[in-house]
């Protein structure tokens, strides 16, 4: 591996890398388009099935049949189904998710406001998941078979079988009410100050991270233990290389793949669980919005939520695939 590279070789390599990125993007798009069409069509059909109408959210106590018909006409709901879908889809492609049935506000705007909060929480949760997941996983692998390994595995098992709302309530009771370290809910924008912002995000992020910590740590432990059993590691030990060197050079790169892959899958889980967490912590984010929209039967809002979550998850997976493509060869990803 000490041969000097010819200049042309480097160019080819760059080209190859670029075309690999393009290929990944193209493949993701090829998946995204049909996914998008199917999912939006399904959600659109749901309105027809649900029998919900903006008339009742608006009229409440005064919903006479004539008034209902008038309002449904205003919203274009008396047009044929496919025509409605076509209009809506056209608007969505222009970034317009329609207007909320309950207050007439642009759904895109409503979601954008909530998304800032939810993404802050989700990113922080991922960060906690990575740090603690890797820490626990590595620690358990390094001390495999000891009581440390066993207790970590035990704790992780408990983490992974707890329903998300139980975790949320427990965190509130312990860290907010009991110890008074964090506020029990609410949100302070970053402009007000970094530390109150982080303080308000901490508990919800922690609640969301439990599942990620458990899965990342388990996968990492398994990957590392597997790597330690490989011949080249035994060889390195025989050659008398330092433990740290063996861990960093030989074990970690070969054992980390599944943990990274599982991380990629954790993002939709976190976005999903935010529905519960934001309800407990009084965060006015995307998850709370999704729940409120569904409970109020505000169909344009629900459709907006679904479109945005699909876009979010697909773009996140794209990033993960690009990153994973760089770090580990496909064979180690377990996909």
């Amino acid at each position, binding site marked *: 591996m000490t041969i000097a590279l010819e200049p042309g070789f480097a160019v080819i390599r760059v080209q190859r890398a670029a075309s690999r990125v393009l290929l990944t993007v193209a493949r993701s798009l090829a998946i995204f388009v049909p996914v998008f069409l199917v999912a939006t069509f399904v959600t659109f059909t749901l309105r027809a099935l649900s029998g919900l109408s903006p008339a009742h959210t608006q009229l409440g106590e005064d919903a006479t049949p004539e008034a209902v018909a008038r309002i449904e006409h205003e919203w274009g709901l008396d047009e044929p189904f496919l025509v409605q879908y076509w209009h809506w889809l056209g608007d969505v492609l222009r970034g317009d998710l329609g207007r909320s049935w309950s207050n007439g506000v642009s759904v895109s705007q409503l979601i954008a406001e909530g998304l800032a909060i939810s993404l802050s929480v989700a990113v922080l949760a991922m960060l906690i998941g990575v740090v603690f997941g890797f820490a626990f996983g590595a620690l358990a692998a390094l001390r495999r078979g000891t009581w440390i390994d066993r207790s970590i595995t035990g704790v992780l098992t408990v983490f992974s079988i707890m329903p998300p709302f139980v975790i949320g309530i427990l965190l509130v009771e312990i860290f907010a009410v009991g110890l008074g370290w964090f506020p029990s809910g609410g949100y302070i924008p970053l402009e007000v100050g970094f530390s109150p912002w982080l303080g308000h995000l901490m508990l919800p992020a922690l609640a969301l991270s439990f599942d990620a910590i458990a899965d990342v740590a388990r996968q990492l432990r398994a990957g590392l233990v597997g790597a330690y059993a490989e011949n080249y590691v035994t060889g390195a030990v025989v050659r008398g290389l330092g433990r740290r060197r063996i861990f960093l050079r030989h074990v970690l790169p070969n054992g980390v793949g599944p943990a990274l892959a599982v991380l990629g*899958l954790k993002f939709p889980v976190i976005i999903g669980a935010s529905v519960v967490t934001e309800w407990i912590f009084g965060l006015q984010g995307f998850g709370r919005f999704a729940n409120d929209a569904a409970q109020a039967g505000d169909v344009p809002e629900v459709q907006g939520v679904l479109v945005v979550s699909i876009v979010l998850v697909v773009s996140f997976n794209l990033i993960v695939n690009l990153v994973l493509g760089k770090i580990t060869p496909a064979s180690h990803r377990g996909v």
Partner: protein
Amino acid sequence: MLRRILTLRAGRLAVGILLVVALLAILGPWVAPDVPTAKPLQSLSGDHWLGTDYLGRDVFSRLLEGSRDSVLGSVLVALVALVVGVVPGLLSVLLGRVFEWTTLRLVDTLVALPFLVFAVAVTALLGNGLTQAMLVTGVLVSPLFYRVTRAATLAVAHSQYVEAARISGASIGWIVRRHVWAKVLPPIAVALAQTIGVGFIIVSSLTFLGIGVQPPAPTWGGLLASDLNYLHYRPFAPLAPALLIMVTVWASNLLADAIRDVSGAAGRALVDARKVAAR
């Protein structure tokens, strides 16, 4: 296979717990002591082993009564996922490319959906039944079964003995029955066990949000959610349903691991797909 699972300590534990849970589900409503309603929100006593709830009903009886709907619910989730996932997974390998491409895209769709968001949205729109919640959840976890089945079938389909059978003119049905089933069943069993666990967690989260609750029919998740409203009076009340849910989920996961451990290399390689189950 069951015998081999029972040789593992974890396997014995898992099967034992799940048997007890299954017995609860079948017999629970009948063996539940018929205690008349009393003063609400009592703590533990001889008359009321786990106290009384907000209307003065015996919590122990409610838990027993609720076991049927809770267990049936999770089993329904797993069965829906099984049917929706396994059949296309199998056929995606055996039928032509068009079917393969279509089902793969459909599965990608389902995988891209943040689980709880979608479950909340659809259940709320389709009316507020626990059955709707189960069906939706089942469809959403079905990619796990699709992928597991497809991977196992692919591995078998490209093996020499299947090639040989094909060349000798055997029908697809015969090949599936003869060769594919045996290889596909263990990973499906793993997936099934995991899905039951996932079903419990999802359904209890939905009931916590007030979705799918049809009083007075109790479920463990619903009891847990309503106990949280009376923490001041019965601070440890949520513990019983929470433990029931967690132990059942744990046993399902243990069973999944045990099946994988006894089903050899083929099973082990496929279980990476379990990651999907986390959704």
